[in-house]
């Protein structure tokens, strides 16, 4: 089974964004991907007050193929409650945090209380990570240290210039994993598996902007063993998703 750990579904009329679930599913079908994690582009409760319900409905209608991660803005007082509601009542399977859109310092209390809410439910927290302020790996590291019971996933394997940092952070903090979505260098995927172990790396695409077939090809180019490939492509994601609420 192949599970894409990083895709987007959202409708933001003000920005002209139409990221339809059908587009993501079509890309998944083209690539032979069975299931995917989906999240919005906006941070609840901003912009779209119906985002949580809409994504939940999208996932419910997918026949089990799509799993929602709730993307929240930590600065809002109700952020932990939104996370709890999403995970407890709406079927979400994880949390997404994006420091560039929220300007939330990963080590700050607003973020940590979201992590604690997620960790209490066994839900992983996916951080956008890359080369910008608030999202570099070592800026996210304090969050991993402060909430060691939280499973933290750094998306994009450190972006263009922070891949070494991403591997270093994951090496130091056992509760940190990496997702391969949009990562520019297949060789870094191989390096991560060799250094951290295949159980710490997750396949993701960042679809629909980054087509699932191309992102999947990256995994094939990383030089992984069959066993490692199976872990990266789906077994790790399955383990995380099944652990929610357990």
């Amino acid at each position, binding site marked *: 089974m192949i599970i894409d750990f990083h895709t987007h579904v959202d409708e933001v009329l003000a920005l002209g964004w139409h990221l339809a679930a059908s587009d993501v599913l079509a890309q998944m079908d083209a690539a032979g991907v069975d299931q995917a994690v989906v999240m919005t582009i906006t941070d609840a409760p901003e912009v779209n007050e119906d985002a949580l319900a809409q994504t939940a409905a999208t996932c419910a209608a997918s026949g089990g193929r799509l799993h929602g991660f709730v993307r929240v803005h930590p600065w809002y007082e109700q952020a932990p409650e939104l996370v709890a509601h999403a995970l407890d009542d709406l079927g979400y399977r994880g949390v997404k945090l994006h420091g*560039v859109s929220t300007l939330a310092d990963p080590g700050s209390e607003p973020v940590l209380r979201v992590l604690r809410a997620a960790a209490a439910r066994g839900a992983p927290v996916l951080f*956008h*990570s*890359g*080369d*910008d302020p608030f*999202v570099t790996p070592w800026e996210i590291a304090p969050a991993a240290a402060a909430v060691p019971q939280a499973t933290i996933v750094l998306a*994009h394997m450190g*972006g*263009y*210039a922070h891949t070494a940092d991403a591997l270093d952070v994951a090496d130091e903090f056992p509760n940190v994993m990496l997702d391969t979505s*949009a*990562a*520019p*260098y*297949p*060789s870094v995927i191989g390096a991560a598996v060799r250094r951290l172990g295949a159980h710490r790396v997750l396949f993701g695409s*960042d679809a*629909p*902007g*980054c*087509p699932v*077939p*191309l992102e999947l*090809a*990256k995994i094939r*180019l990383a030089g992984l063993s069959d066993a490692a490939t199976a872990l990266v492509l789906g077994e790790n994601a399955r383990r995380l998703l099944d652990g929610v609420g357990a």
Partner: protein
Amino acid sequence: MDALALLGPNRYAPELTWPALRDTCSALGVDRVVVAPPLPPDRDLARAGRELVSLAEGTADGPVRAVPLVRIDPWEPSAAADAAELLGSGARGVLVHPWEDNFRANDVDLLAPLLREVRAAGATLVVEAGFPWVAEPAQLAELARRFPAVPVVATRGGHMNMSGLSGGAMLAALRRADNLHVLTSGVYRQDWLEQVIGAVGADRVAYASHAPVFDPRLEVLRPRALPDQAARLAVLAATAIRLFEW
């Protein structure tokens, strides 16, 4: 045609040799590759350029033909003279690296002597782009605008930003300067490539692997995934032929 690979001894990374590059090109169905020297360990770019021009001459009858660029550090007192010599010896353009050589891409005063030689030779300027503060989209547009008779080519899509923040700026730059082009190397958003092609035309976009920085096996998949056949042909060959094989 691969519009850029870095060939030869590299001060900062392992060397890519001609046999390795040739074999990779052959395996991928690439029969022409534009090659430029990275900064060599002894920093002698003029010598590296002469050697590359000589190597390229030797590939003329082979299955894969190298098209040489020379790299110039505009701070060198001999920058313009070196460019004139090497462009007269068969180099098809000049590569500059604002990040490694510590200058702004739009430092017109610094670059003017060099750009005069490039223009006189009817050659093309390639800029290692996407680096913060020195080779940002707006700076690239300003450079191109100030030298309208010179084709200016930005590597890496002109931007490197895993948060997707600079794609709009680079599209605006392309709209602003008709002589500005981009290479596909390292662009992680397939939808951005399609957006650029739709907005300014496929004749402003050329495929480049940027080996060994990026993996040609992955990079070639992006232009090949373009849905429009005419665009694919332009990006995979025609644009680069026009820019580098005058």
